[in-house]
Structure formats: structure tokens, C-alpha cells
């Protein structure tokens, strides 16, 4: 094992390149599964939770993809480590609390993950950069099939795979895509779009999923309905909406520049100016300004800055990332660190004016 901090290695998946990455940051497919005969985590006793962790750990340890991967026992991680993982979109805000007997297993390339004892005994994930819904669906099906050989999953022919919350039962599948929509937000198209989703069994959430506001024009589109549809139908429905969104967002960004090119360009360059010179910056402001850079990257203003890098930078300015490894840091110091990081990453870049 190298001496690299394993928590930090979880950053790298965000810099992978993916299709449609100018709009789609990442794709994720998640299965919820439970072991029969043991209460769901909310109701299980500690020794029952420990038994679940042990059995899942054994199944994962035997899986070739997870060799040399990461295994985090959440209570053993510090608060700042858990926040870091959450900001990297690897654990949910719920998991961040780090109660006893919660664990997460990750493959070395952070393409597959198994979370233990969150709301369900197992949450099985496949994730990837860009728009790759079909690929992550196939990957999660593959992993679930592999694990099903050594772990029985609670199932009823009528209600499908049984989950702690009936809103997840059936396939137990959540297919989601994280998108960046500065164009649609600026042209006020988000509300109308959000309203149309429930009719087709989809939902839109903010940056971190449950209980969050939309930060920096990032949204997660996913299915809500898990029962009565096949996995393929679910992914098809989400994919269809994502494809529409990509078109609409591209159109919105173009319109902004066509309608008032000077004003739109001004916004990008002002953002760049502030990002490369400020001495103090809040994370809200940083994410807002970095969102503007998206237009610039689209139009080739910053030839050496990729969309993937931009995505990673947006995560890197989150408080947990700045704080990591520094002990207790007050907000003012954090704001200064953030500005320093941005200057370091963005200044002296070649630009096309």
C-alpha cells in the first residue's frame, strides 16, 4: 500500500472524462438490498448490525474488483474525513453521521461501492463520470448478481426486493444523473422542468441528494418509482429526460451568448478575474463563479481547463475539503484558504480572449 491518504484518493474519479460532461457531471445506479431474517438497520440491535457488516465484508472481500480497494468503517473515520467523502459524493449526508456498524467498501478505481447499514443493509453502487447510465446500470447489475451468490437478498415475488422504506421496494433501483444547468437557471426554465417530472415518476434534487438545496446550478435527476417498472424501463425514462435536458441546456447557453454576447462574456471574464485574484471567498460565491466558467470552457476561452477539472474544483472548494488535515479552521481562515486554492489552480492559465 502506498502512503497516499486513501481518503484523498477518492477525489480522482471526478476527474475522469465522460460523455456530455459539459452538462452531465456523473451518472450513478444504486440497488437497495437487505438480508432476510434481520431487522432493517433502523430497528436492528448492534449485534445484528455487526452480523450484517461481517457477512457483507466477507462477500466483498471475496470479490476480485474490490481487491486493494478501500474499506472505511464509518465510526472509525473522523468527522472531517466523513465530510470529505460526502463532498466527493461517495457517502450520503445520512451516512456522514457515522453511527456504529456502518461501513463503505470501494473498488480502487471508485467505480463500484457497497454501503452497509445506511437505511438498508446494503446499498450497492456503480458510478462514473459523464452520461453513462446504461453502463452504470450494467455494472451495478453485475455486482449485485455476484454478491447474490453468497448473500441472500430479501425478496417477495409480489413486491420485489424488500427495502426499509416502501418507496424503494421493487427493483430497489435508483438511477440518477448529476447535471450542471447554469443556462437553464439563468433563463428561468428550471421550475417548469421540475414540475413536469413527477408525472413520469422522476424527481430532481439538489447537489447532495436528500435534504439539500440546489447549489451552484447543480441538480440530480433520478427516478422516484421503483415498483412496477423494469430496470431497463427506469433507465430509459431517466435517460430520455437527460437527453432532453442536455439539448435544452446547450440551447440556453447558446441563447445567452447570442442575445447579449458582450454581457455574457463579461460575466465569464469577471468571474475569472475574481477567482484568480480574490483573497477571501465563501463556498457559495466560489461555486457560483465557477459555474460561470462553464460557459467559458464551453467556448474555448480556457483551452487548458477541462470540464472534468472544473467539476473537481467545485468539489475541492467545499468546506470539508479545505478543512481536511488542518484541524479546526474558522470560517474566515477557510475563506482565505479557498481563495488561495482557486488562485493556485486558475491563475496563469492560457486564455483566448
Amino acid at each position, binding site marked *: 500500500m502506498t502512503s497516499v491518504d486513501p481518503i484523498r484518493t477518492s477525489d480522482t474519479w471526478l476527474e475522469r472524462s465522460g460523455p456530455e460532461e459539459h452538462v452531465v457531471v456523473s451518472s450513478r445506479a444504486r440497488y437497495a438490498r437487505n438480508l*432476510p*431474517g*434481520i*431487522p*432493517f438497520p*433502523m*430497528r436492528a440491535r448492534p449485534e445484528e448490525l455487526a452480523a450484517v457488516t461481517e457477512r457483507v465484508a466477507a462477500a466483498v472481500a471475496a470479490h476480485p474488483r474490490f481487491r486493494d480497494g478501500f474499506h472505511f468503517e464509518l465510526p472509525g473515520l473522523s468527522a472531517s474525513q466523513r465530510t470529505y467523502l460526502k463532498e466527493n459524493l461517495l457517502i450520503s*449526508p445520512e451516512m456522514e453521521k457515522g453511527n456504529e456498524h456502518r461501513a463503505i467498501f470501494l473498488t480502487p478505481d471508485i467505480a463500484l461501492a457497497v454501503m452497509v447499514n445506511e*437505511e438498508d443493509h446494503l446499498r450497492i453502487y456503480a458510478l462514473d463520470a459523464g452520461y453513462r447510465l*446504461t453502463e452504470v446500470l*450494467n455494472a451495478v*447489475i*453485475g455486482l449485485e448478481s455476484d454478491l*447474490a451468490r453468497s448473500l441472500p*437478498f*430479501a*425478496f*417477495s*415475488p*409480489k*413486491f*420485489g*426486493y*424488500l427495502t*426499509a*422504506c*416502501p*418507496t424503494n*421496494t*421493487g*427493483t430497489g*433501483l435508483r438511477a440518477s444523473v448529476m447535471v450542471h444547468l447554469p443556462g437553464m437557471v439563468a433563463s428561468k426554465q*428550471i*421550475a417548469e422542468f*421540475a*414540475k413536469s*417530472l*413527477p408525472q413520469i*415518476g422522476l424527481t*430532481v*434534487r*439538489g447537489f*447532495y441528494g*436528500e*435534504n*439539500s*438545496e*440546489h447549489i451552484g446550478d447543480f441538480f440530480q435527476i433520478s427516478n422516484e*418509482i*421503483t*415498483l*412496477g*417498472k*423494469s*430496470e*431497463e*424501463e427506469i433507465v430509459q425514462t431517466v435517460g430520455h429526460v437527460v437527453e432532453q435536458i442536455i439539448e435544452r441546456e446547450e440551447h440556453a447557453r447558446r441563447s445567452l451568448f447570442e442575445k447579449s454576447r458582450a454581457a455574457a462574456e463579461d460575466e465569464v471574464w469577471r468571474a475569472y478575474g475574481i477567482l484568480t485574484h480574490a483573497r477571501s471567498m465563501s*463556498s457559495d460565491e466560489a461555486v457560483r463563479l465557477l459555474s460561470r466558467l462553464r460557459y467559458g470552457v464551453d467556448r474555448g476561452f480556457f483551452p487548458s481547463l477541462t470540464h472534468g477539472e472544473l467539476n473537481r474544483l467545485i468539489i475541492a472548494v467545499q*468546506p470539508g475539503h479545505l478543512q481536511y488535515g488542518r484541524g479546526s479552521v474558522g*470560517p474566515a481562515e477557510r475563506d482565505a484558504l479557498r481563495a488561495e486554492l482557486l488562485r493556485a489552480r486558475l491563475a496563469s492559465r492560457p486564455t483566448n480572449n
Partner: protein
Amino acid sequence: MLHDKICTKCGQAAASVKLTKLIKGQMEVQWLCSDCAAEESPYQKKFNALSVQAILAGLLSQNAAEAAAKPVRPTIEATCSACGMPFETYRETLLLGCSNCYEDFEKYLIGDLRKFHGSTVHRGRVPEGTPRPIELQRSPQELKRRLREAVEAEDFELAARLRDELRRLQTGTDEQN
């Protein structure tokens, strides 16, 4: 993250939820920590997607208004024979106790399932070796068509699964003959 805002209800914890309510035709916005938010609306945890949409849409949809108002239902006395959880606890937490709850509470859950998913019958993947109920089996024609489409789309993993299902169907038919 909303790190700079403090919960307007308890004034202590950091706010992480923006709760929008429609009261007598007026929008009321509160910044709350997750504990206070859960208190404000028992459906907050589960219907958070609606509160984000409410903010975005600028008004609450019919469903969210229904969810925010606690429905009046008769108390159901049932308990799960495996984990002992009373059904009423599910009513409060929206979480079941164990997989057996689905069996013991089946007739009470059907309504919630239909309301949320629009369906009460599983149509997705099943565990290896589990036969599908006959009425849910896809016809060979449909499977062949979907297999062709999958091959055309070069989704070979899906094609393999469909081919396996087709084989299972055909073996079943042969056995009957």
C-alpha cells in the same frame, strides 16, 4: 452548503434545509437544521424532493400540500410477528422494521404502494432461479424483439440477459410438451 445560516427555529444548529410552506396562500420560508425540519413536517425526510421542487416551482404542488397536512386515519393495531414493530410506528417514521413486515402488513401497505409507485406488482429483475409469475412473463415475441434492439444498440449485457430469459421460457415450454 448553507454553512453560514443558523436554524431560525432553535437558533443553535447550522441550517441545512430550506423549508417552504404555503399558508393561507402566502409562501413562508424557513431556514432549519435537520432536527427542526423533521419536526416541522413529518414528511420532510421523505418528501424532500417536493420541497426542492416547491422552491423551484414557486408554489407547492397538490401532493406536497397533502403531505404537509397530517392525514387523519384510523389507528391500526397490527404488529409484525418477526420484529415486533407496530404498524403505527411505520406511520410515523415511514420505515418498516424487517422484510417480514411486508407480509404481515400487506393489506395496509398496498394503498401506500399504489399511491407512491402507481403499481403494486414487481416487474424488475428477480433472484437467479426464481420463476416469474406466469402473468408477468414476457412473450417470446416481445423478448425476441427486445433482444434484437439490444444487439443493434450494442448493449450486449442486456442482450445476454434477454437471451437467458428466452431460453428459460423455451425450456419451460419444452418440458410442458
